[in-house]
């Protein structure tokens, strides 16, 4: 998988391949199978696919029942509906029960694009992260999505896998192993560290590269698992660089930035600059225009990186 591919497309393909090898995998969707790409699984394994109609709450409960009977349900819809719409069902029927349900949301963040705010989940990481027993995973590209789908199928317990709509370039080097809960140091550095997740890993890498020409050494960590957080690597980076810049296609409240700030403030306080959506709903536009407007670009990350260095000096 070397070409530009949407993480949701990689998900659909991974499901088909895993479906062949793992007969306990079943897939549920809520009238969005074409968009979530679970349609690929549905075509191949029609008897193991359940379209629940536009009934997200019901879908979560049904998945819980299948999981309680030994199946491995993958449940897909858009992020807003998978988390907010069915929150109590995810909380009480899936997380509290520790059932082996894999919630895979395919349209999350600002890059949902033209559909606008009603469809742009900017708080889903926060909602899922606060649930005990829940694992939260945000892969950086199609290649990593492929690995992540297999990893979550093989781990036991509830997982929230956050994917996106648009095609995204491959940023994860081939052959880099994927392990849940183990963040990846993609570029080392000593002045500051970008802690990025999902599609923001790419602008973080670009910003780090551009900063080099200004003699600023920035590390880049791909925090693909937001829960459980890789505390070890994070604290190592905090100690080594003295300041962190978190980057996420999500509200700065409750997501990766919050998780990182919580960790370092208790263990090794350093300035943390959170780049993300600043407590506002999204809006319509192309994904590129929106990423630009909301500051999820290499240019803006360079500014954030410099602000972090400034903060470090002031301390």
């Amino acid at each position, binding site marked *: 998988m070397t070409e530009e591919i949407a993480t949701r497309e990689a998900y659909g393909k991974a499901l088909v391949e895993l479906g062949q090898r793992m007969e306990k995998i*079943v897939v549920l969707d809520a009238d969005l199978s074409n968009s979530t790409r679970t349609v690929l699984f549905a075509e191949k394994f029609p008897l193991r696919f359940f379209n629940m*109609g536009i009934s997200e709450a019901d879908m979560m*409960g049904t998945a819980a*029942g*299948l*999981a309680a*009977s030994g199946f491995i349900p993958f449940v897909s819809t858009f992020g807003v509906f998978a988390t907010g719409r069915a929150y109590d*069902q995810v909380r009480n029927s899936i997380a509290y029960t520790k059932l082996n349900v894999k919630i895979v949301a395919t349209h999350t963040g600002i890059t949902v694009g033209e559909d606008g705010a009603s469809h742009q989940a900017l708080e889903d990481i926060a909602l899922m992260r606060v649930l005990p027993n829940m694992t939260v995973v945000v892969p950086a590209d199609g290649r990593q999505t492929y690995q992540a789908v297999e990893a979550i199928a093989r781990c036991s317990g509830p997982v929230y896998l956050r994917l996106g709509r648009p095609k995204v370039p491959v940023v994860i080097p081939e052959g880099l192993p994927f392990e849940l809960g183990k963040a990846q140091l993609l570029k080392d550095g000593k002045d500051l560290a970008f802690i990025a997740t999902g599609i923001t890993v790419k602008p973080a890498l670009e910003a780090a590269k551009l900063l080099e020409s200004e003699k600023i050494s920035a590390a880049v960590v791909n925090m693909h698992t937001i829960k459980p957080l890789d505390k070890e690597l994070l604290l190592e980076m905090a100690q080594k660089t003295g300041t962190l810049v978190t980057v996420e296609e999500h509200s700065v409240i409750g997501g990766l930035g919050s998780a990182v700030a919580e960790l370092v403030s208790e263990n090794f306080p350093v300035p943390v600059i959170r780049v993300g959506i600043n407590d506002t709903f999204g809006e319509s536009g192309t994904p590129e225009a929106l990423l630009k407007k909301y500051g999820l670009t290499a240019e803006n990350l360079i500014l954030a990186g410099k602000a972090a260095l400034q903060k470090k000096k002031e301390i």
Partner: protein
Amino acid sequence: MDLFKSNSKGDENLPAISTAAIEELRQKARKLRRDVITMIYKAASGHPGGALSVLDILVVLYYMVMKIDPANYQDPDRDRLILSKGHACPALYAVLADRGFFPAGFLESLRKIGSPLQGHPDMCKTPGVEMSTGSLGQGLSVANGMALAARLENSRRRIYVILGDGEIQEGQVWEAAMSAAHYRLDNLTAFLDYNGLQIDGWIRDVKSPEPLVEKWRAFGWNVLEVDGHDYTSLLEAIERAHAQKGAPTMIIAHTVKGKGISFMENQIDWHGRAPNKDEYARALKELEK
């Protein structure tokens, strides 16, 4: 009373039940009602009304109908019951203890810190509890998932679920009702504990779910109506549910909230409070008869 001999439809039949057996069940139910009230009294909190209204349905299922083995309670081919109206769990706990899923001594610990018997059912803590419930409206969806799983595995196991009549005001119940009919889940039998009361009053005053029979039928269900405290009627209805092909069955069980303790019957006040010492003594006395 050869109720089931006249109604034989292949191997889905339940064994015939004698008058003596029915009397034995009644005795059992009186004992279980004492357990329920004792448990709630000792916990000094809980929901007696809905526990007492649902108890006879549980008695029929756990002593006459369900294929379960307390010694092997995780057998994949066991029948399953979900108490969707989770607040009535003292009734389920009493039955599970009596059937040997866990020691009767557990009952005293209901709702206390560290107890395996939580205020609402917790499948991770209590042997025999198939699904954690408490947030109303979720059990039918889960039962559907279990019924789909049974079908995928070509298992003959059956799924039972009990809903409250107030509970069905939740929209998810109707999403699930559509799903069960769409997927023709004839291995699923639901019960509605139709005691007429919810917390804030009579259901018909708060927000009426009527006409119930027509509603469930319109949603594609096989609908039966019975007296939810009458064992022969319940058994007959369950047998008819088992014989039904291509659709799930809803057994609307007319019940009395607080059943068996005169001063609790049909009283909204007894939805969610424990008896005091005097009330407890009076309740036990009535249940000794």
